[in-house]
């Protein structure tokens, strides 16, 4: 099934590139979900604050729409990598702006001794994924959009706990703090969320 799914998305990409408006729309609907989680996960782990990233997502989608003709790849993995590059660029702007305002707002001396203080955000846009094993590599490459699609169908609580624990890789103690619940409660919530996610994935097979 994973095979079929993969080719389905590859098909969608191909048709969209050939100018089929409907395929393009469907593809971008999926990308929007992906970006929603991606933008929040990135921003929140960098900034250590809760973020409303809708504007960032909007901006990135617009640019992706505009530049879609320039996307040459054909696989889901390539498409997402391309999308992340655009996101990253916008995120960097956003973070710089945010840091600037935060600095002014807090009126605190913050040393940006290193001119590349925000450099790392712009550099290295290609995923490196040092811990990925070959099997993960395989799973990930054909599953990200479907997984995010399933994630989107969860209740907000479930989404939140997975976003914090899995996508931002926060330990449960921090997840509990951010969600304002006890640690055991958050763990149970997470377990139920993961179970539900699995159910949705299985239903779609």
């Amino acid at each position, binding site marked *: 099934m994973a095979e079929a799914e993969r080719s389905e998305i590859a098909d969608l990409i191909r048709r969209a590139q050939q100018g089929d408006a409907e395929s393009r729309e469907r593809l971008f609907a999926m990308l929007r979900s992906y970006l929603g989680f991606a933008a929040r996960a990135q921003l929140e782990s*960098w900034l*250590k604050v809760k973020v409303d990233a809708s504007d960032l997502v909007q901006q990135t989608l617009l640019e992706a729409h505009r530049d879609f003709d320039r996307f040459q790849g054909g696989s889901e993995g390539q498409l997402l990598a391309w999308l992340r590059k655009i996101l990253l660029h916008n995120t960097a702007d956003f973070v710089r702006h*945010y840091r600037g305002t*935060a600095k002014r707002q807090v009126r605190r001396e913050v040393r940006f001794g290193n001119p590349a203080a925000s450099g790392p955000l712009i550099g290295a846009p290609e995923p*490196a994924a040092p811990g990925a094993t070959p099997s993960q590599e395989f799973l*990930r*490459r054909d599953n990200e959009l479907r997984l995010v699609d399933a994630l989107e169908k969860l209740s907000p609580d479930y989404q939140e706990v997975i976003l914090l624990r899995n996508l*931002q890789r926060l330990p449960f103690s921090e997840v509990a703090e951010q969600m304002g619940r006890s640690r055991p409660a958050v763990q149970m919530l997470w377990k139920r969320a993961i179970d539900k*996610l699995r159910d949705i994935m*299985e239903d779609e097979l």
Partner: protein
Amino acid sequence: MSDALPESERELERLDEYLRQLQAGERPNRDELLREHPKLARVLDCLDGLDGIASDLLDGVTRPAHEETPKLDATVTLSSSVIQMPSDFGSYELLEEIGRGGMGVVYRARQKGLDRTVAVKMILAGHLASPEHVRRFRAEAKAAAGLRHANIVEIYEVGHLQGRHFFAMEYVDGISLAQRIARGPVDLETAVRLVAEVARAVDHLHRQGIVHRDLKPSNILLDAQDKPYVTDFGLAKVFAAGAEATTTGAILGTASYMAPEQASGHSGDATHASDVYSLGAILYELLTGRPPFRDENPMETLIQVLTREPVLPRQLNRNVPRPLEMICLKCLSKSPDDRYASAAALADDLEHFLKGETLTARLPNLLQRILMWSRREPALAARLAVLGLFFVVHVANHALGPPLPPGFYEKMLIILGVWAATAVGFQQLLKVPRWSLPACFIWGALDSALLFTVLFLANGVASSLIVGYPLLIVASGLWFRVRFVWFMGGLSLASYGAHVLDFYLRRVQDPNDLGGVLDLRWDRHVIFAVALLGISGGVAYLVHRVRVLSSYYGQKP
């Protein structure tokens, strides 16, 4: 079933460990885990997949070293941080935050090109959830932007910048009417002039097809010369629809100034008359120092708005002239048709009052006044109505029926008189905050005692008046106190027991007593007692449910 929980806990532990290793970049032993928990295969797929996404997002870029990140309070949210001080905001330079409300933050700002001070209101993210809301917000704001009136805060620009919807408006250097009221009493003439001016401004809005919907003291600004400016008009509708999660809270929060037809949840029904009501509520607060209805519990406030009449302003402030009270109460009529036909008509009458001219407002007719009074004093009105009915029946019975025992007719009249008099007395006592709770219990006990006396003088358990006890229990439910219901239930049961004893010990022996001809079986008494208990339980449970609901909706948003 008993090992279901430990099983899922063990799974949780395994998954947690698996994920920890995955995230640490170690290679978790998937096969070993699957040997122990074969069902988890799909779950592990999900974890792998999610971590794949995470590594794309997080590992592709090095995290900035810690010291390079300005330390921020963990509670700060980005959306409001960006809003907090973007200082440079398009053609505006934000100077300071001057207000923060449910839907946005207001700044004092300088408009660079024109070099004038303006107020910039930025809408918090999340309040315009969908493109449809954005469209409606812009439509409403644009409609408002075209308005010019001396007493309306002018909107200069509506826009979208740096990801925020905002509007720039006239800056009023002063305080809100709510702050003014909090500072101390406003003299009568100023109060009337203020409301008249605001009413003229609201009438101007109405002529342009805009219903304010959220008129309240905090939405009226006063400049240094005490000149009022109406603000925040027309937008309440958009935001009520936009932030569904907070709608209940938002409605309940301002219920004190909301017309009944609006407070009942049909905010779409808000009309010009609803704004007239709110103007009346503001006038009421200016005259008396408190809004017409305000309870600590927002749901109780709502119920009062819907079903009760406000305390007469003159009872709260003796200096309020009668004509002014009349104007105020006309605005606060429950039925929109009984209010002023327009905000302008209200302004006219207020101006007539200031000049000492005749008002267009008329005292309501007798029937209306009785209705209003009964909504204002429901406990007293209900008692007097029942006593009155009883009085009529008693007199008719004396005149037309068979002869009563000697002295019975007079005694009854005396008791009815005493009952009515105590009812009036207790109603006054209830208004003293310190006494309201004990008064309610004492009043109930007195009702029960008087009913007992009446029955004792009449035929005791044989009298049909015995239905007075269930009536008392049901009525006690209207105080919405579970304890009070059980208190009345207990009293009724005890009184009934006393009547039964009286019946068997005294009346049965007395051949002249009417009770003597009744059947002596005891089962009917048990049935009646059980019914009393059942009614108490039912009413108490109903009250309990209402209270649970009420505390749920009463939570502060």
